[in-house]
């Protein structure tokens, strides 16, 4: 019921869940070894930014546009091609349909 065979491999989700459970218990136990003097709403819970003032939530939150900038910058040339391809122009949508159709006509015509 749990095991799944692909012909060349086996997958057992129950085993995975058991391993996850053991890891969770291990970390929960480690957490219990920590100090119990933590108090909410005191100086302990305030953000420490090396003496700098805490900025507003809007400024602190990294926006989606800024995430993965390294990846998108290194892939600039790929994105330039893809952005050109996704022009939003309906004629281009139809053009891609015709191009794929023509390529396959050619392939099956030759074959």
């Amino acid at each position, binding site marked *: *019921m749990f095991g*799944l065979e692909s012909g060349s491999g086996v997958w057992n989700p129950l085993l995975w869940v058991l391993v996850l459970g053991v890891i969770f218990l291990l970390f929960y136990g480690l957490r219990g070894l920590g100090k119990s003097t933590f108090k909410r709403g005191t100086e302990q819970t305030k953000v420490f930014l090396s003496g700098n003032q805490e900025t507003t939530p809007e400024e602190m939150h990294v*926006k*989606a546009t800024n*995430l993965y900038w390294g990846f998108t910058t290194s892939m600039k040339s790929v994105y330039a091609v893809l952005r050109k391809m996704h022009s939003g122009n309906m004629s281009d949508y139809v053009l891609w349909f015709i191009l*794929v159709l023509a390529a396959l*006509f050619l392939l099956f*015509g030759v074959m």
Partner: protein
Amino acid sequence: MTILEFLLLHSPALIVATPLLSAFLLPLVSRIHPKVRDIFALVMLGVTSCFVGLLASDVLSNGPRIYVFGAQDLNVPVVRILFEIDAMGIFMAIITMMLAGIAVIYSWSFLHQQDGLDKYYTLLLLVVTSALGMELTGDLFNFFVFLEISCIASCALIAFWVTEGESLEAALKYIVVSSIAALFVLFAIGVFYGQYDALNIASLASLLQFTFLDKIAFVILLVSLGLKAGLAPMHMWLPDSYGRAPPSVVLIIMTATLASFYGILRVVFTLYGNVLTTSLRFSLPAHVIVGWVLVLLAIVSILIGVIMALVQTDLLRLIGYAAVAEIGYMMLAVGTSIAALGAPYATVALQGGLLHIFNDALDIGLLFLIAGAIYYATKKRSLDEIGGLARSMKFTTIFFIVGMLAVSGMPPLNGFVSKFLIYESVFQLNPLLSIIALLGSILLLAVFVKVLYAAFFGPELPSLTGVKEAPRSMVLAMGFLAACAIVIGLFPNLLIDTLVQPAAGALLDHARYISMVMGGL
């Protein structure tokens, strides 16, 4: 004959007739009370689901069913339509009913303050009718008719937020692109009719010779239905439409998109199943060329889908691109299965692909509902304008984490099971394909980690201080899909043994389908 036997006998007709008649009754019912209208739509879908369940139990235990609309005697020269229902058709019908039911429950809260809901539910039921018709019919022209109904009704649903210019633009693009695809499908059907004087899939499959005209019709059907299924590089309409339609509508359009994908499976495996082993030039069997063409289109879909999703800031468009990548995974499995036809791993690939159709409906559907819940609570679409929602939308956050892990193929959720079967089988065709598929999954996880961080983590933004959790019916709809993702992940054999294996068997054993239908006639 008992009532149950009578219902079972006519269930193929009732499955299509119930939502169709309900669609036309709905504007009248709507006049009684809005709540009666909402319940009526769900009850009618429930009744249709019962017919689907009844037919499923019959088809899975007794084999394909034939249902004739019109004269039973073939010597009588009248127009007749045949429904031919096998395990594959019923598998797709179950997915359609699941998505439709969830969409209606979600709509109760999501759209409760909107005008024109009588038309909304009418159109919703029409799309369901058309998707079910496409999945159950055994007649190519009938398939085209249902395809056209789905195009028109889906277009109107995409334009539901009629006051937003971009919704109208998306709807216009959808109808133009869909109509062109549908007209090409009609042209291919004309080619068949001109050559063989037949429109029935089984009858055509027994007559096809893979002549030059047959090759033309094959390419047209493959590309047109590929466009309707959102296969790259013809996918551009999909993020536009999915990104601008109400999220509950997206679930309904997904049923039509998946029905088109089913059309490709039916064309390749059943219609052309007899001629796939024909040797073409350089002694290459046709199935190798067809399989590799599909694999190539699949790889393009996966890469374009994930790379474009990574830079999106509009959450709905982002999920739309992820949906393109998911269609790529399904097609990769199908292409592998065809390219390696006859090999043991071809069956595993097909099972993985079919299971991924079900998983895609669950996971992408769940993510769209979550995006809808965020829009409902914040009235914002852009990821740049939201943040810290985990504090106020705890259930939605948990469901998002489930959806994110499932769609990225992380164990032990449902997406992993189907992707595991796909990776393993694709590796045996070509290890490079498996590496690309794995890379696509990693990038997909990166895409949704970005969403998790940008939308749910970080400090609570002052502009979103009054945000509350989504209403109960929306949480219920999201919770159901998330629970299904977990259950299928933990007990994959429940679905594989009962539905996926028979569906894959029905597609691969096309000779049985043809002989049963032709013998039945």
